[in-house]
């Protein structure tokens, strides 16, 4: 236990505070001061940007709601598209277009690619799976689990074998997710490895990868644990969501339930920097318990 303040001093401080608050005049000032100075408006500090339909604030369109204030409360309680109103039985034009814009962003992230300068920033070299093209990637997930012969060769020649922790990044179903989150997740992950005294092998990027590409990579490099940071299937709320799949000694034949996953990593969901910091904790436990997935106690 750390040094404890003598109880007398503590009591004095608590009581000083208490008396200050109990005194009528002070209490009055304290209270009005709080009312008059609400939380600083953080939006005001942000630079002004042109209004965009895709990131504009949600507003209710119900023209004559029974309870105006209640409507705001409903909207604040969910990201669902409610309070949108209608023309006849159809939605209003702006809402339809907003929906289509979000869908467009999602589609583009499936068919996009990760900028090579981002990969260079973290010294990630690239290997490919046998996905061929996006259409084939979507129809044949099995191809996204097989690294090309050239890729296998590159992994063998460039990576340290039998690392304690192997980190792999892949575009998966959203290149956009990698672009949006790698700068936060990756260094935070590396810090967490350091904090737990874990050592990492040579990281690389897999183009056209699926989750189970972890297994053949496990066969090649034989890491103790492997982390795959991979783009998730995009939704309309965000096309930038990433997952971290972790597995103790992944090998061919590893089953889904042997993998531990953290999903929904993006700035509006699981905070990327916190997710990265937590990965080290999970890996440490995998190494201690020599297991992962449903058998891992977190």
């Amino acid at each position: 236990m750390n040094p404890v303040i003598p109880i007398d001093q503590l009591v004095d401080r608590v009581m000083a505070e208490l008396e200050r608050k109990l005194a009528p005049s002070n209490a009055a000032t304290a209270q009005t001061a709080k009312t008059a100075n609400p939380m600083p408006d953080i939006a005001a500090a942000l630079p002004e940007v042109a209004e965009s339909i895709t990131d504009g604030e949600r507003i209710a369109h119900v023209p004559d709601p029974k309870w105006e204030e209640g409507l705001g409360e409903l909207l604040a309680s969910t990201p669902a598209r409610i309070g949108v109103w209608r023309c006849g039985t159809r939605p209003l034009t702006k809402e339809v277009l907003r929906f289509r814009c979000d869908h467009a962003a999602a589609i583009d992230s499936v068919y996009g690619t990760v900028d090579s300068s981002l990969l260079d920033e973290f010294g990630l070299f690239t290997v490919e799976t046998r996905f061929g093209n996006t259409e084939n990637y979507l129809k044949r997930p099995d191809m996204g689990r097989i690294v090309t012969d050239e890729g296998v060769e590159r992994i063998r020649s460039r990576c340290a074998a039998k690392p304690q922790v192997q980190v792999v990044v892949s575009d998966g179903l959203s290149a956009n997710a990698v672009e949006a989150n790698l700068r936060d997740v990756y260094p935070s992950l590396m810090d967490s490895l350091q904090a737990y005294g874990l050592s990492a092998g040579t990281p690389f990027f897999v183009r056209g990868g699926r989750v189970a590409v972890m297994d053949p990579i496990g066969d090649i490099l034989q890491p103790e644990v492997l982390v795959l940071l991979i783009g998730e299937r995009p939704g309309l709320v965000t096309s930038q969501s990433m997952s971290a799949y972790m597995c103790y000694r992944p090998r061919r034949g590893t089953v889904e339930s042997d993998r531990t996953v953290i999903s929904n990593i993006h700035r509006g969901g699981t905070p990327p920097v916190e997710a990265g910091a937590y990965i080290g904790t999970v890996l440490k436990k995998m190494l201690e318990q020599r297991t992962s997935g449903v058998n891992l106690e977190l």
Partner: protein
Amino acid sequence: MKLAAAAFGRTFQFKDLKEVMAKANEEKSGDQLAGIAAEDAKERMAAKLVLADLTLGDIREHPLLPPETDEVSRVIEEAVNEKIFAEVRNWTVAELREYLLAQSTGNEEIRRISRGLNSEMVAAVAKLMTNLDLVQAASKIEVTTHCNITIGQRGILAGRAQPNHPTDSIPGMTASLYEALSYGIGDAVIGINPVIDSADSVKAILATTKEIMDKWRIPTQNCVLAHIKTQMKAIRSGAPADMVFQSLAGSQDGNAAFGIDVRLLDEADELIRREGTGTGPNLWYFETGQGSELSAEAHHGIDQVTLESRCYGLARKYKPFIVNTVVGFIGPEYLYDSKQVIRAGLEDHFMGKLQQLPMGVDVCYTNHMKADQNDMDNLAVLLAAAGVNYIIGVPMADDCMLNYQSTSYHDIATLRETMRLRPAPAFEQWLERMGIMENGRLTKIAGDPTIFM
């Protein structure tokens, strides 16, 4: 059993019924991924030709998955009425199609004959039908069910309110539910997919939906779509559930991957009858979808249409209140584009209805499929024409928890207006009392969720 056909100047020979069934399917990426699809359009037609001439007896005598090793097969086999089967065993699949489409064949005739069919025969006939065939045959079949209210009558289109929330926030779910009710949606069920699969969480959601139903005297039923074991735990601890829910697969090991078997379903059935809050007699909600067996590597080389039909054979045992196929949720490796999704939606609806199930469809897609909201509009209209019992209502069709797109509250309201369909009668009376609907049309206040605050 004749497994060869002469066509296009050559003979196509198939090695067994399984291969014929698979290759007779319309193109599906899932069958291609499984490596069982027809090589090309000609082989597909050859398989259809062979299938058309097979008898229903051939199909029953050559089980794709023997009842001795698969309990789903057993459930289906045990349900066949031998007398009725004997009447039709020499019919070819082609004749079955023509019987179903004949003007002289109506709801009563189909209901009778359905008792002599197994799920494979139903799948077989679907493979020979065009999209419009599937619409017309299904539209003849009326399956009404009753939990707290009756749905499924001719001329009725019900909607499931699906007010999901990404963190299971009770106020957030309530907000989306108010919006649904204000558009006249929620007569099929107030059904929520939870993020957190714990009995406490399920109980809290059930209690909240029940409270809202009680407060506003809403004639409908509630359900939380957690795993069946979690629901059972919640019900045993006093949660008010009108129905129980489970996803089904068409093979025993497919169900094992869902963590269920017939014994567990029987146990849940007994529990909901004893401790559920629904009036009944229909107290189940099942969901299915083509491709789930392949994804669990539990398909046994059987095509996804046939396996889907087998899900319905299993579902039938429990006399569900509602069943729906989540047709476009599974992803492009099973249904690649809108054409495949639309086909699958019509097939599933028909196959379920022919097995006397109260079919709804989750008309939906994910963002990595080649489909968009226009395709959902199309499929929804086709299904409304086919007499679908209900479809799914999600705010603006965008499910912010499951991250896929379905049909919206607006869509259901629009289908009702354009196709002259009505909400379930008991629910419509309530909508009128609330002033949300008048003479089957939404009123001025419809679409204002704050009327429930």
